[in-house]
């Protein structure tokens, strides 16, 4: 594992609540969850840059929605 650097992160109360809830659900530390989020963001961004689309599909409603990423 590469050397790690430390940073201070300022979150709003709702953002912190979501982070804590997701950490609890996934059984991950808040740091581990944020690292996963960065990896996922980079992966999605790389695939979108290749021209792929990110879709959510609701099989019951036979509906697909494209997720747009900043």
């Amino acid at each position, binding site marked *: *594992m590469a050397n790690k650097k430390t940073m201070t992160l300022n979150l709003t109360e709702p953002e912190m609540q979501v982070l804590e809830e997701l950490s609890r659900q996934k059984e*991950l530390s808040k740091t581990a969850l944020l690292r996963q989020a960065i990896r996922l963001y980079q992966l999605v961004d790389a695939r979108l840059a290749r021209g792929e689309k990110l879709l959510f599909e609701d099989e019951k409603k036979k509906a697909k929605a494209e997720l747009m990423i900043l």
Partner: protein
Amino acid sequence: MKIPVEIIDRSTGEPVRATLFDAITVEHFMETQNEWRPLVLEAARRQAASAQAARADIPVHFHWDWTRKESQLALLAVHFYGIEYLGKLQGIMKAETVGHVCRLPEQRGKPLIYIDYLEVAPWNVKSIMEALAKPTRYGAVGTRLVEAAVRQSIEEGFKGRVGLHSLATSEYFYLEVCEMTPVGRDPGKQNLLWCEFTPEQALIFVGD
């Protein structure tokens, strides 16, 4: 990361000290394509032509091409590991940290390390070398790579959980050697067998 690991010299049965590393480059991918693939293809040809060879022994990964994964070297979600001994790549693995979750009922939805590809050099695969009428060189290479995935899983906070789709020719290794749990066939992935480590199984496997 670069750490010593023991693999087995099949000619003596003795352990030798190889190196596990994660600084995989495109040159390593080219090494697999230039030095491994011709041997795998030749073994597949001979086994397919032999009436005596069991169909299950034919290497189904003869078409793999690691060089196609070059663009993934920069992705944080993708980790490559290799094992080197005497200047030669003996095994290589691609593992992913996002996009896959546990399927076993007792840990469904929990994060895991997904082993997307794992290949050992053809001279370390008994069925391939038998087809080529040559001795197998080194053992325990695949085991050391799976151990690396478990250790990464622990470091990521995934508690050792690892999952993979096993090729038919590798099911014995993952189920009997690694003692992973067979969860079921995945129709979305060529009906390959999905295998998974629980934290308890993972810790037993790496001997912690």
